[in-house]
């Protein structure tokens, strides 16, 4: 009897261990180690990132920094919705812009990303009737979120801009 109980207990332990192994494995989906999400939030320097992109030559227009208080006027994003922002806009001759936000957390970043997406759609509608040549840039706008950070880039050389952002915005 004692032997039987011990055997059953051992069996149960084996089943539990196998179950744990299966559930852990099923969420890797064959992803490489590089893409495994770190449990430690990544801190990014949005000032440095924005400067790198500005210096890269991906923009045709002259972008100038805009006071972050105008995020509401430009994108319906109030100051309370982010911790800090870097906003660079073109002269009005193009739809080009570079905008980076640091949100309070991932949830706030997701909300910012939604508003950025709406902003790009609205701009595409506006420029279709104003400067149709700019619509292509807006269609290829780069919008990426990494943890609590959001970046929106509308550039002439959007392919190069996307490559840079993939490297810088991890």
């Amino acid at each position: 009897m004692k032997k039987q109980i011990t055997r059953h207990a051992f069996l149960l332990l084996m089943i539990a261990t196998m179950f744990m192994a299966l559930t852990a494995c099923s969420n890797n989906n064959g992803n490489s180690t590089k893409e495994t999400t770190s449990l430690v939030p990544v801190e990014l320097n949005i000032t440095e990132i924005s400067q790198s992109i500005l210096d890269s030559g991906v923009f045709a227009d002259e972008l100038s920094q805009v006071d972050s208080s105008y995020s509401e006027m430009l994108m319906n994003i109030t100051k309370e919705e982010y911790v800090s922002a870097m906003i660079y806009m073109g002269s009005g001759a193009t739809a080009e812009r570079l905008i980076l936000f640091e949100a309070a957390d991932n949830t706030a970043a997701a909300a910012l990303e939604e508003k950025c997406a709406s902003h790009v759609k609205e701009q595409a509608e506006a420029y279709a009737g104003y400067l149709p040549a700019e619509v292509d840039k807006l269609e290829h706008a780069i919008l990426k979120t990494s943890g609590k950070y959001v970046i929106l880039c509308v550039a002439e050389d959007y392919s190069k801009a996307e490559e840079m952002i993939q490297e810088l915005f991890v």
Partner: protein
Amino acid sequence: MKIKDYLLAAFTILLALSLSIAAVLFAAHEKRMELAQKEPVSFQTPENLPEELLPTEPTTEEPTTTTEAETVTEPPTETESHSIPSDDSRIYFTNYTFQTVDTSYFDDAVFIGNSRLQGFILYSKIPDLRAYTYVGMTVKSYFTKAEFNINGTQMTAAEALENTPDFQKVYLKLGINELGWVSTEQFIDSYSKILEHIYSCNPNAIIFINSVLPVSQAAIEKDPTLSQEKIIEYNKAIQEMAAKYGACYLDVASIFTGEDGYMPYEYSFDGVHLNADSIQLWLKYLLEHGIEER
């Protein structure tokens, strides 16, 4: 002995269950972290644009019925309450006195206009200016295009102004997007309605109307709807309208007009929109042309 065996079995089952729950929780956490990373989003423009967003065709702007031309009142040159400065004769005003002000002068002001004014707002380096500006704004879309989100409601510029508390001054900048209109009278007629609307919101508001800025020759070659002659014609009409309504006409265009009558290359990126450095010249002009409160 029997009880001991059962206790041992129960403990083993409990341990197995705990390990299973821990595994499920760990997997859920991994999934949440994975969701935080997303692929870049691509965008598509809408296939069908609303009519108001289509480029303005001159023929569509013609009035369907003929109207008598309005008699334009001759603008007053002097009144007992003011004198025209000898070095500023290009400025039209009524019973105002110009003074140099600082940026706090804009605290109770609202800026309404097109992309050129939006450029002023963004590059003025003055935070928190109240502005209702957008790319492509016209004297008609002031009343029709709900471009502004005010407290969760999309509003036109007119509605946004109605919901703007305590404004005392309005700076207007319109005209470049209407150069393709055939009729100057229709442009002024629509512009006048904006002045009437502003006064209906605040009868004592001081309205500053910025003249239509010049464009470069290169810009005209690229876009035939741009015309320096039309700009001059519009500005003359705006000047007369301002006098009629007691608004202040600000000839900002004069500081960006070269000897050949066009905008010099160095002021702009595309011959139409001022660059960030040029905006500072515009700002300086506005700060030198503040008006004493009525």
